[in-house]
């Protein structure tokens, strides 16, 4: 029965597809090429969060995805709208975050003619998306949306972009949503090879000094429970990467904290003395390994990852296992035998006692203290960060006991990520207290989103660790460029409290340690978007630190100053 009542425009069909994918919220910004889509959004039940810059739409979709585990969605118009998404898409790509970005495009017949607001966004985003599509026929739209969500969220997750020419959104289609995806060329491996898993179990039973090095892959695969069970059953200490924070309980006795450049000394020492390294959902990033030739020099390496291309990319491994972390860890836990690691754990505990994370406490307001106080006040918050020193302190001094509670731009290191990502996290998890731990530099990259949180009443708490510097860069200048602070002093940029108030948010300034806790309590109680401007010690350094190019056990204390 040919043309039934299922006929609709491409724009309407897009919204219909989003419903079918269970999308409840999209983050976006309108423009000419997406007018038909916005017209459909107007009467739809999907919530649209209007940001103030498209970069934030992508970061918010990313924060939403990391906090909820669902795929985040952002929309932008053609040309500048689309190019503004680029940093957000690249950020999601580097940290394997599932988002679907929808961009408007000039009408099909005008593509390639340098039409008004035309940009080749599929070309631009080729190296920073898992896949992308230019829709050429409205009949393909439902299949493409279905595939986009499937590709974004399965295997190693990542961003997928759909470029929609304006004429496609007004063309008519007989709507039909496919039930399944058929991609002959895309079949991620979830189940690990049993022989390899047995080999790994053998190595575990032979090992007396094993370490688990766990990363963001654990969180992507929702494998935290399996990791905990495996580590406890085999009595193996666990260190996590920056994006792996929360994959293992932060207060567990087997936990070593973060490893790498600003990791704990004991995590780094453990790696360097380990005879077996079980790497799960990690990619041997240079910020983790330091000088790669001397990383874990005595260890056999088991590498579990869903992406075969990560195996032996940076470092040759002995036992690769391609598969989903959750599946593989479960299988591995079943076949491991008892092994005795007590001496090893004792040795590590000794390091923990001897070399704890520490900072100098005096009368001044220390950034590390603020993070500790946030933890004391609220130990089950979602902590989102910007990029810089404050990011490292947030990783070091807050204990993350659950996955999806620490959201940070690890791979790309994007300043300006935190605030919009916090918006996405709060929208996705409204019952959680969400903090953006910010630097005074980073916050200014997307501070205009104060308008978004106020107009949509999204009560995130922005905690600026205001040191008057692009602190992380200043730290490197202090250490490696004879304190020549070239373009890193940003003191007195703006009165952040007044800025917050100008947008209608609550602003609080704190410059004394005793005022820290009350300010945090007040922000939480206010249930309003709140900015706390913490005026902190301006030349505090992140410690300990592995100098670039050194082995990770060549880790130095930096705080001795003045």
């Amino acid at each position: 029965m040919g043309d039934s009542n299922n006929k609709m425009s491409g724009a309407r069909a897009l919204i219909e597809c989003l419903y079918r994918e269970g999308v409840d919220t999209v983050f976006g910004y309108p423009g000419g090429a997406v007018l038909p889509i916005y017209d459909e959004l107007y009467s739809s039940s999907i919530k649209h969060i209007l940001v103030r810059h498209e970069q934030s739409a992508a970061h918010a979709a990313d924060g939403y995805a990391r906090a909820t585990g669902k795929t985040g969605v952002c929309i932008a118009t053609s040309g500048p709208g689309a190019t503004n998404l680029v940093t957000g898409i690249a950020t999601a790509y580097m940290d394997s975050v599932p988002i679907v970005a929808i961009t408007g495009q000039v009408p099909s017949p005008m593509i390639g003619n340098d039409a008004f607001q035309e940009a080749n966004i599929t070309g631009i985003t080729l190296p920073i998306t898992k896949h992308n599509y230019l829709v050429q026929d409205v009949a393909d739209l439902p299949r493409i949306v279905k595939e986009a969500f499937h590709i974004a969220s399965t295997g190693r997750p990542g961003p997928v972009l759909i470029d929609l020419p304006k004429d496609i959104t007004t063309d008519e289609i007989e709507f039909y949503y496919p039930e399944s995806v058929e991609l002959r060329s895309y079949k991620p491996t979830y189940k690990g090879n049993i022989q390899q898993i047995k080999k790994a179990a053998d190595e575990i039973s032979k090992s007396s000094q094993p370490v688990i090095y766990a990363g963001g892959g654990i969180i992507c695969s929702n494998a935290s429970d399996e990791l905990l069970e495996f580590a406890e059953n085999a009595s193996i200490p666990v260190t996590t990467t920056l994006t792996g924070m929360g994959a293992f309980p932060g207060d567990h006795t087997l936990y070593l904290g973060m490893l790498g450049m600003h990791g704990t000394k004991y995590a780094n020492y453990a790696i360097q003395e380990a005879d077996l390294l079980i790497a799960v959902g990690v990619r041997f990033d240079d910020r983790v390994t330091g000088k790669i030739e001397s990383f874990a020099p005595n260890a056999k390496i088991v590498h579990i990852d869903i992406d075969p291309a990560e195996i032996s990319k940076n470092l040759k491994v002995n036992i690769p296992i391609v598969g989903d972390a959750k599946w593989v860890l479960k299988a591995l836990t079943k076949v491991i035998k008892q092994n005795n690691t007590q001496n090893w754990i004792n040795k590590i505990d000794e390091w923990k006692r001897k070399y704890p994370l520490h900072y100098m406490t005096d009368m001044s307001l220390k950034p590390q203290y603020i993070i500790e106080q946030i933890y004391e006040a609220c130990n089950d918050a979602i902590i989102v960060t910007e990029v810089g020193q404050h990011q490292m302190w947030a990783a070091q001094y807050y204990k993350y006991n659950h996955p999806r509670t620490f959201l940070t731009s690890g791979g790309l290191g994007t300043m300006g990520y935190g605030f919009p990502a916090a918006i996405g996290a709060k929208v996705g998890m409204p019952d959680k207290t969400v903090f953006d731990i910010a630097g005074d530099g980073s916050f200014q990259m997307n501070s205009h989103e104060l308008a978004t949180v106020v107009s949509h009443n999204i009560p995130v708490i922005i905690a600026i660790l205001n040191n008057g510097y692009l602190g992380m860069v200043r730290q490197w200048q202090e250490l490696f460029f004879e304190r020549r602070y070239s373009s890193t002093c940003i003191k007195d940029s703006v009165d952040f409290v007044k800025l917050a108030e100008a947008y209608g948010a609550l602003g609080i300034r704190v410059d004394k340690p005793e005022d820290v806790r009350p300010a945090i309590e007040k922000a939480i109680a206010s249930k309003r978007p709140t900015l706390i401007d913490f005026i902190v010690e301006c030349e505090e350094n992140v410690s300990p630190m592995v100098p670039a190019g050194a082995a990770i056990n060549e880790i130095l204390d930096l705080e001795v100053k003045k």
Partner: protein
Amino acid sequence: MKHTLAVLVENKHGVLTRVAGLFSRRGYNIDSLAVGVTEDPSISRMTIVVRGDDQVLEQVVKQLNKLIDVIRVTDIESGESVGRELTLIKVAADVNNRSEIIQIVDIFRARIVDVSAKSLIIEVTGDEDKIKAIEKLLKPFGIKELARTGKIALTRGSKKV
């Protein structure tokens, strides 16, 4: 080390860009790339000759496999495959040396596909060594233009990639 990769891909627009982009951004060296549709019109076959040690090759294959539009990647070993390349060579020729050139063409089982007063176009198929050899012999006459297709290859016997 040179490797010949047979890469089966979806016959869709933009796929060549994805593959070429991958090689350039990851710094892999392509010697040649030939592409055409296969017996199944929805699939194209790319034959890529790439240079690198085993570790590089392993990464190239894995990264290619990660592209959604890549269906299969096979490293074709030289002993078990037939590889060919087509080259067109326009060489300067006049009445005085034409017969000498024709002799060379015959020896290589190449063909003359165009004749004019001052030049000939020679079509030669073969493996890389053969093409190099004829090119070398024709050089003294003056090669005016040369176009190569890049290598294509199939595995021997009934085995498919």
